[in-house]
């Protein structure tokens, strides 16, 4: 579970995240994941205290069903499922665009997106345990890949590019952090799958470990990224990992290694989208009392694929959709579980817990 949730957050190092934090904090971009990590740890501890005290053997949606009744639970499940579907569709579009602009320029986007969605639906269809086991195998590859990517660019590092230390200034760093903390979606996913963990009491351990690992990976990547690219340049790069991999040049035989990293990039993306798709299906299945959730996965996958192609271009996704989703996702990721659990603790039992 820790590996799965770490990948869920750390995969943002390949996406729009470095660009957004670079544009808000400049040279101090690496501080934003650290501060976001601290905020996320506080949220994990609050949620853990609420779960331990009031709902020791339930997940988030089960708590809603137990205390709020079927109507409110149905509405909240739809909100949570929509959030996960929008996240999946946005990431699918970003990855598909990155793939066609970097490695497959002549392939239509719906072919790339279609292959992505087939892989994602298949992995999600195999279930949560399969996703967690794949993540457990993928995480070492992912970490070695990130370290290799950082170390292979060692001859391009210019530590002076990390100065001034506070980048664009403390207020900008703080506002940027508040806007981008929502990449730590591991918290809401953990709240939802709590009942499926080996021991629900491990909530705190899994939450803290996955947040710390992801924070370390993101901060490390951003430090190296900013030692290689100036903030003005970093603001404009939409695929940071690819840009970093392209400039690897260590002698005659070690250059242009991006094809190796693209494998890692795509694998991590599939794991991330499989988790978010499964969570969307799970929220709906608990909210509407479906006996099983697998048969709905193809329809939700199709919805994500079609939804990812609705925006007219990549600029719309990067400049509007991504920014709006990140700015307001805290309502669902942090506020909904905390306020929901607190309110649920005050109410008597209503529904049936499976």
């Amino acid at each position, binding site marked *: 579970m820790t590996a799965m949730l770490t990948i869920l957050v750390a995969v943002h190092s390949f996406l729009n995240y470095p660009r957004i934090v670079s544009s808000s904090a400049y040279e101090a971009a690496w501080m934003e994941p650290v501060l976001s990590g601290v905020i996320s740890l506080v949220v994990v501890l609050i949620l853990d205290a609420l779960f331990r005290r009031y709902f020791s053997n339930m997940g988030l949606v089960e708590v809603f069903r137990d205390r709020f009744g079927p109507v409110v639970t149905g509405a909240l499940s739809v909100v949570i499922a929509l959030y996960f579907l929008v996240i999946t569709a946005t990431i699918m579009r970003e990855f598909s665009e990155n793939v066609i602009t970097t490695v497959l320029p002549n392939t239509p986007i719906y072919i790339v997106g279609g292959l992505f969605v087939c892989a994602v639906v298949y992995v999600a269809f195999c279930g949560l345990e399969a996703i967690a086991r794949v993540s457990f195998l993928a995480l070492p590859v992912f970490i070695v890949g990130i370290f290799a990517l950082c170390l292979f660019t060692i001859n391009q590092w210019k530590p002076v590019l990390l100065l001034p230390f506070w980048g664009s200034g403390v207020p900008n760093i703080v506002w940027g952090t508040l806007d981008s903390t929502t990449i730590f979606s591991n918290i809401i996913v953990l709240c939802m799958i709590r009942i499926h963990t080996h021991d629900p009491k491990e909530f705190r351990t899994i939450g803290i470990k996955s947040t710390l690992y992801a924070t370390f990976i993101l901060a490390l990547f951003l430090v190296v990224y900013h030692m290689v690219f100036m903030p003005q340049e970093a603001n404009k790069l939409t695929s940071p990992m690819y840009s970093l991999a392209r400039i690897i040049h260590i002698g005659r035989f070690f250059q242009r290694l991006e094809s190796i990293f693209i494998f890692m990039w795509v694998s991590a993306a599939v794991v991330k989208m499989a988790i978010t798709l499964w969570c969307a299906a799970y929220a709906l299945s608990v909210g*509407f009392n479906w006996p099983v959730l697998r048969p709905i996965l193809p*329809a939700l996958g199709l919805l994500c694929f079609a939804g990812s192609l609705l925006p007219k271009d990549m600029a719309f996704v990067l400049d509007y959709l991504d920014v709006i989703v990140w700015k307001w996702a805290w309502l669902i990721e942090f506020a909904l579980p905390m306020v929901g659990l607190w309110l649920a603790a005050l109410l008597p039992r209503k529904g049936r817990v499976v």
Partner: protein
Amino acid sequence: MIRFFASMLIPLWIFVYTIQFGRWMQKKKLNIAAASVYVVACLSLAVAGAVFWKVYL
């Protein structure tokens, strides 16, 4: 137009598959669950249709 209809074959198959799931739940007297599945099936078909319509026509 032919490419549009050809592209809609897979969404149509997914629609039928999802509706079958809804009918199975309706037989088990899970009416609200079945209705929610019908909504998801219709929504996915409609959005896929809109996207392919925009792409091919």
